[in-house]
């Protein structure tokens, strides 16, 4: 059975410490059918872990590990139902099948339509140790990670399994707000953080000058810009910093640890984790045998590197002009007085979309707005954020990403 604990690990969840020595700690004596998560629909048997039914008092990661053990023992899928959505319609005539063996089901964080259910084998989730070797850092048993991703997301499960299978410590504060997370990092003296760039920036704003002593920082889930990489290297000179490109469909494709944004052009020459990389219509396309994944992630070429410039979903039509929200946002956050921003599109019946921005300022309002208005004049009219709202923090989705299209 692939999910086996060989080394003791520690889980600190909502301040409660669980020292777990072996997998036997998770084995339940209760019959499978007595667990509330057990479902049997049209001959499909699975565990449905419904996040919408949980509260901040629940030990979510602990329960997740117990259910993983239960699913493995009974050789049925464990579905991590992040959105609490209905998974199957019992009365439909469409054939519905799910794997009839132990695996983990995820709901993708797709930006259009309802999240899709996809299944991953456990072995593909448990990262090979070599890709997470901590260079120039503390020994493995001293590693203390803060869980910054949703526990039901692909990235979240990677962090959880990495620490659990590696005999490390995981600090988890599910249903966090950024302030809670930042305080948990301090309180428990974490030394490893894996997070989206947006979430990490929010943590930096809460920590201010008193940052924790981090040894490993891994970015993922969103485009990681050079400005953040450079700032992080400055603030954490002893840390090993990397950014990861992965998709829920394909898993991790590449890890970049040269301190630079984007990736070296020659990365396209070889398959990465079994996937061939090509660029079609400015988008990264991943291929393995007959499986083709159009990632929707756009790239530009500059000298010896490719840089991610945003998702195709974040390119919107404003009165006939295509506007790249992420590109405008990068310009805005580079302005003096702006510490973070979210450039988003607001729907309207006249031009389709209108560009708006929420900004977190670090200069007095009047001065910052002068700088922003000056910069707006350098853009073509369709690109200009028409409504710029100062906010205390940028609201992130439950997967730690900025929300860029709003009705």
């Amino acid at each position, binding site marked *: 059975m692939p999910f086996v604990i060989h080394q003791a690990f520690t889980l600190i969840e909502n301040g409660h410490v669980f020292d777990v020595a072996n997998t036997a700690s998770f084995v339940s004596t209760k019959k499978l059918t007595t667990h509330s998560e057990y479902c049997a629909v049209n001959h499909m048997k699975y565990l449905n872990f419904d996040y919408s039914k949980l509260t901040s008092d629940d030990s979510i990661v602990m329960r997740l590990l117990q259910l993983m053990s239960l699913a493995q023992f009974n050789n049925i899928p464990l579905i991590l139902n992040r959105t609490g959505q209905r998974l199957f319609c019992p009365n439909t005539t469409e054939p519905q099948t799910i794997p009839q063996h132990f695996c983990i089901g995820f709901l993708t964080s797709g930006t259009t339509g309802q999240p899709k259910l996809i299944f991953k084998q456990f072995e593909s989730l448990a990262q090979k140790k070599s890709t997470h070797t901590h260079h120039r850092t503390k020994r493995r048993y001293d590693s203390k990670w803060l869980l910054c991703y949703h526990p039901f997301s692909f990235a979240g499960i990677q962090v959880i399994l990495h620490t659990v299978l590696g005999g490390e410590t995981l600090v988890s504060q599910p249903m966090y707000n950024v302030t809670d997370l930042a305080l948990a990092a301090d309180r428990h003296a974490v030394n490893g953080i894996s997070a989206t760039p947006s979430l990490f920036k929010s943590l930096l704003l809460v920590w201010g000058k008193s940052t924790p002593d981090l040894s490993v920082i891994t970015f993922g889930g969103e485009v990681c810009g050079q400005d953040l990489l450079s700032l992080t290297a400055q603030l954490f000179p002893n840390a090993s910093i990397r950014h990861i490109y992965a998709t829920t469909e394909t898993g991790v494709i590449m890890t970049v640890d040269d301190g630079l944004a984007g990736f070296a052009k020659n990365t396209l020459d070889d398959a990465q984790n079994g996937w061939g990389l090509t660029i079609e219509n400015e988008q990264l396309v991943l291929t393995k045998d007959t499986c083709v994944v159009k990632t929707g992630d756009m790239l530009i070429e500059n000298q010896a590197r490719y840089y991610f410039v945003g998702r195709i979903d974040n390119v919107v039509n*404003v*009165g006939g002009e295509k506007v790249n929200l992420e590109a405008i946002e990068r310009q805005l956050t580079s302005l003096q007085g702006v510490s973070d921003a979210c450039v988003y599109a*607001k729907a*309207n*019946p*006249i*031009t389709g979309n*209108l560009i*708006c921005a929420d900004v977190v300022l670090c200069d007095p309002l009047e001065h910052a707005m002068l700088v922003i208005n000056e910069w707006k004049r350098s853009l073509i*009219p*369709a690109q*200009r954020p*028409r*409504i710029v709202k100062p906010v205390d923090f940028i609201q992130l989705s439950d997967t730690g990403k900025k929300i860029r299209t709003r009705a």
Partner: protein
Amino acid sequence: MTQIRSIIIEETINILKDKGVDQQTIASIGDETAFLRDTDMDSLDLATLIVCLEMRLEYDPFCQGFKTFNTLGELVDLYAPGHVKTNNQPIA
């Protein structure tokens, strides 16, 4: 109704000021002003006005489909009492 008219005039003037429109034009804004004909506003400015009004009044008169309007007075009419607010409260 007069409160809605003042809000619409106020937001229109904000947009025109940002564009650097002269004081004389600004002073002449009223019910008969045809946005695209009588001012320098373009479709993006008009979209900005609609979005500002939606954020401020918490009401989208176009939620069930676009309705045409040319003048400020016609736009005020679209926000008139009897139309239901997005949270189902009448504007009153």
